[in-house]
């Protein structure tokens, strides 16, 4: 996926809306900060999620962090490949390393999330 077409949450998840299905992943910046990812705890299909709520956790050798949903809806798919190979999220965070797909209400927009430009400004401030 092209990072320019994605929208971003403050907590470093990206979102891509196609019809009424939103794909969610973790940004390269977040993945690089974590390094050494060993485990991703995923929700179940059909679980409801709400904007800003934790839907799982990602564990690295050093620490564990929550994963937050940038949208509200029901989970229709999870990336099962991550269970056997969590390194996919490091090698391809915008592609094979996606996390979940959420079915959202019809008129849902991603306008509450940041554009790439805005997100890059945020991470520049976090790095200093």
């Amino acid at each position, binding site marked *: 996926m092209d990072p320019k077409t994605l929208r971003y949450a403050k907590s470093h998840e990206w979102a891509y809306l196609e019809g009424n299905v939103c794909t969610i992943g973790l940004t390269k910046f977040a993945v690089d900060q974590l390094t050494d990812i060993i485990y991703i705890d995923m929700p179940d299909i059909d679980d409801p999620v709400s904007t800003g709520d934790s839907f799982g956790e990602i*564990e690295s050798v050093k*620490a564990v962090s929550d994963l937050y949903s940038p949208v509200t809806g029901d989970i229709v798919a999870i990336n099962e490949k991550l269970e056997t190979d969590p390194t996919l999220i490091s090698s391809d965070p915008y592609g094979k390393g996606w996390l979940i797909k959420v079915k959202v209400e019809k008129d849902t927009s991603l306008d509450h999330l940041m554009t790439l430009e805005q997100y890059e400004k945020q991470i520049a401030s976090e790095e200093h």
Partner: protein
Amino acid sequence: MALRTPLYDWHVAQGGRMVEFGGWDMPVQYSSIVEEHQTVRTAAGLFDISHMGRLSFAGADALALLQQIYTNNAAALKDGQVRYGLLCNERGGVRDDVLVYRWQRGCPLMVVNAANREKIVAWLAKHRKDRDVEVSDHTTATCMIAVQGPQSLALCRGLTAADADQLPYYFAVQTTYQNASCILSRTGYTGEDGVELMVAAEKGLPLWEELVRRGAKPCGLGARDTLRLEAAMPLYGHELTEDIDPFQAGLGWAVKMDKGDFIGREALLRRRKDASLPKRVGLELAGRRAAREGAAVLSESRAIGRVTSGTVTPTLNKAVAMAYVDPAFTAVGTICKVDVRGKPEEARVVPLPFYRRPKG
């Protein structure tokens, strides 16, 4: 502001991710903790450990002061021998865990934890009384570097006037590096063979760069932590505190009750026999979620202890932890649960250490 080692600029220039540890700005990792960890297990890793406190004891009563504050027997050390031991408070709790070095010529040396350095310097000043002994803190004037892993000794050959091949494990020698004084010690905190070097601050960078040129891979505190955890070495502030005694920690071998009086001895005589105190154990979890510090250890939903360190270890690829548990649950094979962020995960008591290096 946090202190900086003589290698601080090098770490930053090489992309080391800096964190505060024990009052110092230290690199936690350069590339990946797992890669750095594996390098130490299979080749040679390089660590800046200049944050560790280096104290010397000068004067006719140096040994007497050491014997009073140290649980092991400094008087029994041979020339050049290095020995692990504890400094205890009057209640038998651990103030610090240290290495003591004795030389044929020159003052005994003690290496203490970074976070405890000032506390210990004050403790020594308090207990020195009118003895003929002067404790000097050389920490900021010197640089300390560890080379750890199976290739360490070969990699260091010819670096200093004396070679580490000549040293038995846990022995050290006062030698030279580039014609300046250097201590070369066959010690470490990773569970691998290796050396630790101490040089004047201005020799730190040339020594470090030469070791990098010789092929040692720089590693951060992240890998140092996973390595020592696999080797079940305690970390002060986690497995050791002012409220935990050496017997609880499984370090009774470093307490010599028959060497004469020392601070904490009386309390330790009592605590050694106290069967109610929690004991340090190793836990292996069934799943891959890591039990972190503070997680409760449970039996039939009753809390029986607490995790002090834990991770998914790079060598074993399993979630392991060290914990203090009620003495009734310390037998190897005991099944328990660990509350990992609200979800109880199955665990089993296993022998320590989790990792032991293959004998070469």
